[in-house]
C-alpha cells in the first residue's frame, strides 16, 4: 500500500496547543514539508516569537531559538551572521512583528538580511485573549476595541508588505492566505520562494499569511475562512508585492 499523505519527518508528533480552527498548525506543517523536501534540517535554524506561536519549537524538529517579544529580526540577524550559509527563518505574529517589533523588522529589511520572515497575520492578539492587533480591521471587535476598531482613536490596520516593499533592502515580499486548499498550496510556494531568496543570497524575504483565529473572531472555522476571502483580503490584498526575479 502506498502512503500518499504523511506527517513530515521534521514535524513532531505531539498534541497541538493551538485552538480549533487556528492556522498556525498549517503554516508550521508547510515549513516542515519544505525542510524535508529540500533536505535542509541540518542547515536550518528557526526563531520562535512571543505570542500564540511561542511553542513553535514543540512542532519543528530543528535547532530553534526563542526571542523576546518583537525581537526575532534582531536575534535572527545575530544567528545569520554566525552561520551565513544556513537557512534562518523567523516565525512571527502580527503583534510581535507589526507592533512591538516594528523597528526590528524595518531595519532587518533595510539591511537586506538574508533571512525569511513568516508573518502570520490573524488581525488579533490570540495569546492574551483577543485584543486589538496593529492589523485589526476597521470596525473589528476585540477585547480592547469592544465597539469595533475606530480609526480616530485606534489608527488604521498596517499593511506590512506594502510598507516594507519600498525599502531597497527588501527582495521578496508576498501576501498569501490559508483560506482554501489552493491558497495553502500558494502559501507553500511563497515560503519556498522565501527560502530560495536566502539560498541565492538575494536578501530579505517576508511572506505574510492571512490566517484564521475563529476563537477571537467569534466565528466558526468555516466562517473564518470565508471572512478571510471576503473581508480581510479587502484590506490586505493577496499577491506578490516585490520580487527579485
Amino acid at each position, binding site marked *: 500500500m502506498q502512503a500518499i499523505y504523511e506527517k513530515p519527518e521534521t514535524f513532531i508528533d505531539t498534541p497541538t496547543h493551538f485552538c480549533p480552527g487556528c492556522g498556525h498548525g498549517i503554516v508550521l506543517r508547510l515549513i516542515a514539508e519544505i525542510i524535508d523536501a529540500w533536505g535542509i534540517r*541540518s542547515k536550518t535554524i528557526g526563531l520562535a516569537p512571543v505570542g500564540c506561536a511561542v511553542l513553535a519549537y514543540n512542532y519543528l524538529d530543528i535547532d530553534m*531559538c526563542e526571542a523576546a517579544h518583537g525581537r526575532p529580526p*534582531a536575534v535572527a540577524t*545575530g544567528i545569520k*551572521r554566525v552561520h551565513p550559509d544556513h537557512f534562518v527563518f523567523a516565525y512571527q505574529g502580527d503583534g510581535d512583528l507589526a507592533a512591538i517589533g516594528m523597528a526590528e523588522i*524595518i531595519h532587518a529589511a533595510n539591511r537586506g538580511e538574508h533571512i525569511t520572515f513568516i508573518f502570520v497575520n490573524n488581525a488579533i492578539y490570540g495569546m492574551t485573549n483577543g485584543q486589538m492587533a496593529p492589523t485589526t480591521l476597521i470596525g473589528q471587535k476585540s477585547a480592547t476595541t469592544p465597539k469595533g476598531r475606530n480609526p480616530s482613536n485606534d489608527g488604521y490596520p498596517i499593511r506590512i508588505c506594502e510598507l516594507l516593499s519600498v525599502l531597497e533592502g527588501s527582495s521578496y515580499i508576498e501576501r498569501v492566505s490559508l483560506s482554501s486548499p489552493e491558497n495553502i498550496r500558494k502559501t507553500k510556494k511563497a515560503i519556498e520562494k522565501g527560502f530560495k531568496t536566502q539560498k541565492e543570497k538575494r536578501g530579505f524575504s517576508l511572506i505574510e499569511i492571512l490566517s484564521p483565529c475563529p476563537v477571537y473572531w467569534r466565528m466558526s472555522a468555516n466562517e473564518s475562512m470565508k471572512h478571510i476571502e471576503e473581508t480581510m483580503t479587502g484590506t490586505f490584498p493577496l499577491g506578490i508585492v516585490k520580487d527579485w526575479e
Partner: protein
Amino acid sequence: MKQLLTGNEAAAEAAVYAGCRYYYGYPITPQNELINYMSVRMPQVNGTFIQAESEIAAINMVHGSAAAGGRAMTSSSSPGISLKQEGISYLAGSELPCVIVNIQRGGPGLGDISASQADYFQSVKGGGHGDYRLIVLAPSSVQEMADLVYDAFDLADRYCNPVLILGDAQIGQLMEPVEFKKEFRENLPLKDWALTGADNRSRRIIKSFYPVKGELEVFNAKLQKKYKEIEKNEVRYEAVNIDEADVVLVAYGTSARICKEVMRKSAGLEFRIGLIRPITLWPFPSEYIRKISERVKCILTVEMSAGQMVEDVRLAVEGRCPVHFYGRTGGGVPTSLEIINKIMEILPKNMTAKTPLPFAGVK
C-alpha cells in the same frame, strides 16, 4: 608593546584579543570610542560589526550570535543600558554567554554625560525582571579594563552567563598605557550546546520559557546553584594597607583611584587608612569585608552615587563596626581632600587631634 589608548578602545581591542567576532552597538556618549573602534577593527579580523537601530536591537543581536555559538559583545552607557535590560534578562534566562560594557554617565533620565557610579543597583541587583545575576567586573584603570574584558569572555563561557563590565566616563575616556599580554584568540571552536543546525544529532532549543507548572522553579533552582558556585569561585578584590588600618575605605573604579590618592596624601598623618577595592561587584567580596570589619575602627564607602554599594558593605559588616558613606552625584567627583575631611569627621577625636591643617578646616 605598550600602546596609549582610552579605556573604551582598550575594551574593544581586548574583546578582539579574546576572540569576540560579533559586536553590535548603538552610539551613546561617553562610550563612542568603543563602537567607532569596533567598526574599523571587526572587518580586519573577519568579524561582524553592526550599528543597530537601537540598544534593544543590539542586545538581541548579541543574543542571536551567542545562541549560535559565537563570542559576542555590546556596549553602551547608562540610559542605553536601561534599554538593554529586557534583553539581559532573556540572556540570563537562556543561559547565554556574552559581554556587555556599561560606561556609566549621570542619571536618572537623560542625566548628563560625565562620570557616575549610579548604576550599581541596576548592575548587581538585577536591572531586568526575574531572579538572575550578572557577573559584574569594575576596572579602575585602562590596563585593568583590557584585562577584565578579556577575562569576561572566559567567565561568560565557563558559567554560560552574561558578564557586565561596569566602567564610567572617566575610565572610558581616560588615556593610559596598556599592553595586551594574553593570547590572541582566533577561530574558537563552536560550543557543544549552540545552535549550529541539527546535523546528525538531536535538535537544540535555546529558550527561557517554562510554561509547564513546576518546570520554571526547577530551572530557577539550577540558576541559583550556578550563582552559588560563582560566589564561591570568582570573587576578586584588591586590598591595600589593610593590616595596619584604623579606617578602611571601600571603593571601586574611579572612586578607588581617588581613594588611592587619599592614601598617598595622608601617609604622614597619625591614623592609618586602608582600601578594599572590589573588582567583582557581583559576586561581592562580602566575606573579606566582614573579616576586616572585626578589627577596624570604622569603614568609609566612597562612591559617585547617593549611596548604593554602601548597602552591600553594610550587609557584609552586619554592625561589626560603623559603616559611613561619602558620595557625590550627577557628575560630581569626590576629591581626596573631601574624603580626608570625612575620615577626620568619623574617626574618634583623639585619633585626629594632632592632624595638621589644611585637612581640618576644609569643607
